[in-house]
């Protein structure tokens, strides 16, 4: 992280006093003991006690906090539920941590417009629960959905296991209200589908809290599917599982979810839950279909035939909701199951072209061997999003560093195979320094200029996403390389 600014640290008492003038009572936390509760998010390997925590409960207070910090040159880190797996909400020693937890109201469920208007601190699952009375739900379902908030989902463009069919957060938003670092409030979109001008809503989504603080969100709701069915399919070869996924899509089927677990993951889960997963399988493929009964029944038969054609060693069809839950239970317990067999684990999040799965698994096994570590894999197979779980022991000297190095190697390999550094967890602090593996200096400068357009003093969540923070004035200059202008060989007239 950037070196804390000593003059800001020295002004701590004055900053706390200013925050107390804006947010009264318990909404400003400055005792060291209480601040420790905020010292990390879901990426617990990185910790930093914030300068002060502010928990406003009105948009006006947020605007006032940001306006004051902007005028005084004080950094601000926004925070939702703190479930980020990439350190997106990691505090700064010289920064105000702005918690949105008090914004927890569902403003409106509007069934005829298939929209919900909610405050940013509402949990992902609470939206679907509120909408269910109208036969509707909110589709993106990150695994942390009972805890993570919609404001954080917007910041991270969160995914989930149903992205292939229903998209990420960005495909399911209609509008936001947002406060800029300057304290200015802007409203983007509404309940309609069209938004004139540049797509600010699309830009804000997934911007990891670097561009503004979202204070209200309007999401798109979908009709609850009539039925959900699942298939559990085993293969004695990872490539065959991959081929099955490809053939399903090739047949024109877009399932609600397709998940692959490799052998180490299968064994960890089976040891934990005793679901009856076949222990001799090299890969287990879980496919979920949803929709009307007639559609589900048709698709289950189609997929069964495709799976057998790909050499599946076992195909189980769910015949009840209980079956469906049982099939999923293992996949959903994969992380805790790994947690049982290893003192610590580190979850990596990259995306690869789906067909590269066998090659990637081979490469990963080799990389892991070199680092003397074990890796278990779960894979959102439909969209190529891979979650290798690196097993390590933090109490062993240097093992965390090895795990991190292995993670970086895996992600770099994802990029080499035509994939990306992060599919759904975000860049944050974690993958910041890997950005040059995917983007050139010119690409990154162009992104940073967007940051400068919305936050010219770089005060909002600095130290995240970009490997180096370049001052905006510097980015504004014409690029002159070794004293030459670009395309010097071209004629000028």
């Amino acid at each position, binding site marked *: 992280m950037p070196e804390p600014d000593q003059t800001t640290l020295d002004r701590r008492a004055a900053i706390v006093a200013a925050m107390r003038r804006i947010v009264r009572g318990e909404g400003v936390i400055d005792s060291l003991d209480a601040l420790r509760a905020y010292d990390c998010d879901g990426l617990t390997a990185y910790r930093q006690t914030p300068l002060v925590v502010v928990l406003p409960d009105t948009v006006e207070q947020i605007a006032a906090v940001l306006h004051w910090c902007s005028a005084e040159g004080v950094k601000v880190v926004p925070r939702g539920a703190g479930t980020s797996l990439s350190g997106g909400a990691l505090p700064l020693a010289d920064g105000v941590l702005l918690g949105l937890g008090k914004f927890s109201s569902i403003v409106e469920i509007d069934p005829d417009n298939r929209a919900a208007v909610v405050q940013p601190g509402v949990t992902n699952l609470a939206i679907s629960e509120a909408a269910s009375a109208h036969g509707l739900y909110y589709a993106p379902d990150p695994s942390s959905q009972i805890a993570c908030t919609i404001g954080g989902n917007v910041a991270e463009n969160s*995914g989930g296991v149903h992205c292939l069919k229903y998209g990420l957060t960005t495909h399911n938003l209609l509008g936001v209200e947002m406060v800029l670092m300057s304290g200015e409030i802007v409203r983007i979109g509404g309940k309609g589908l069209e938004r004139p*001008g540049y797509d600010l809503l699309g*830009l804000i989504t997934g911007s990891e809290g670097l561009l503004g603080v979202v204070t209200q969100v309007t999401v798109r709701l979908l009709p609850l599917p009539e039925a959900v069915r699942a298939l559990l399919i085993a293969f004695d070869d990872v490539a065959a599982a991959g081929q099955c996924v490809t053939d399903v899509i090739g047949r*024109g089927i877009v399932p609600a979810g397709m998940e692959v677990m490799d052998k180490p993951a299968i064994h960890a889960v089976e040891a934990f839950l005793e679901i009856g997963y076949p222990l001799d399988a090299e890969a287990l493929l879980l496919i979920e279909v949803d929709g009307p009964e007639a559609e589900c029944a048709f698709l289950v038969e189609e997929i069964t035939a495709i799976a057998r054609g790909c050499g599946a060693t076992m195909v189980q069809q769910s015949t009840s909701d209980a079956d469906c839950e049982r099939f999923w239970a293992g996949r959903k317990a994969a992380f805790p199951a790994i947690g049982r067999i290893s003192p610590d684990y580190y979850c990596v999040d990259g995306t690869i072209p789906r*067909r590269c799965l066998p090659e990637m698994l081979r490469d990963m096994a080799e990389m892991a061997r070199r680092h003397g570590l074990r890796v278990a894999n779960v894979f959102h197979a439909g969209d190529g999003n891979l979650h290798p779980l690196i097993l390590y022991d933090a109490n062993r000297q240097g093992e965390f560093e090895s795990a991190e190095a292995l993670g970086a190697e895996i992600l770099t390999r994802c990029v080499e195979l035509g994939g990306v550094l992060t599919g759904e967890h975000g860049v944050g602090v974690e993958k910041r320094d890997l950005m040059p593996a995917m983007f050139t200096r010119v690409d990154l400068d*162009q992104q940073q200029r967007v940051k400068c357009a919305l936050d010219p003093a770089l005060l909002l969540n600095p130290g995240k996403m970009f490997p180096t923070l370049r001052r905006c004035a510097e980015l504004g200059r014409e690029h002159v390389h070794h004293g030459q202008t670009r395309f010097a060989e*071209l004629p000028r007239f």
Partner: protein
Amino acid sequence: MAVHRPDSGEALAGIVAECVEARRPMAIRGAGTTDIVIDAETVIDIAAHRGIVDYDPEELIVAARSGTPLAEIEALLASRQQMLAFDPVDPKAISGGAPGGATIGGIVASGNAGPRRVSAGAARDHLLGFTAISGRGEPFKAGGRVVKNVTGFDLAKLFAGSWGTLGVLDTVTLRVVPAPRFEATLIVPCDCVEAGRIMAAGLRHAAAVSCAAWSDGRALFRIDGFRPSVDARFDQLARMVGRPAERADGDGSKRLWNAVRTVEAIPATAALWRVGLPTTRGAAFAEAMAGEGFRVLIDWGGARVWLGGADDGDAGAEMVHQRAATSGGQARLVRASPAVRARAAPPPPDAVTAMLHRRLREAFDPHGLFNPGLDPWER
């Protein structure tokens, strides 16, 4: 006027860099299927910069140079029973004209979307990544070629619908989807207000309709997918609607939706307005405007209303903008003679939005060289 027709990414980058160096404003032109006229001496015509770079049906992606005709991409996808989910429409085809060879770059830059928008999203939802030349003359890339990607700012969203004002697209990578194997349309004769009610109910229904529109006294619901599923959902929806209805299958259904997509119900000679508003406000708005003498067509279940009016004066701009705003929406003139267009500008954005637009434009095009005078807010 100097017209440049680069036929490669290198040539495109070269000519843009040269213009940037000389601070020469550029009109960025695809197939010229819109009525936009840009006041610039230099034209960058991307139509020769064409060709599919990568089509990977298994990974559900297609990448193409920006000047590639939409029709070429659609034909290629169709050969593998796939399609672009957002249902793009060649602007020239609207109101019965011959398709004008719209380029994929133009389709993306104009944020194009057809009737499937209501269920499948617009160009912005399917643009996975791109390469472009910035207003600094620098080639850069953003996004990727996989569906699930949150690495860095989502500049693809910003470029979809930017009307060539942020950079010149070099290549675009788009997500594709399997084409439905079968489709049927439920046709329900009813008036506009009743249509508003049943479209809202239909879109909430588990039958998962992909399109809902009202045209010429008939509400239309499109259901697509595998045959057994389509049949079951069709019957569910028909029961829910509970009114006398007809059914069109396969090509009959496709013809109905092509007519909606190309706004056939409104004569080509009319000034054409596109109004975006919340689903539940569409029908009442359309009814009121029909009362004022406009031809109307409702799409997206009510969230989009097309208005056809006389192509003279301000084409009713004052009333259209005011009524759209009261209905929680906004109106944009899609087609009109230049004199009418000049009088029909929409109300400007609020001060903060205007500031953000200006600063974002400067972030990509600091000298304001791309498509001078074209304001994406007004399109």
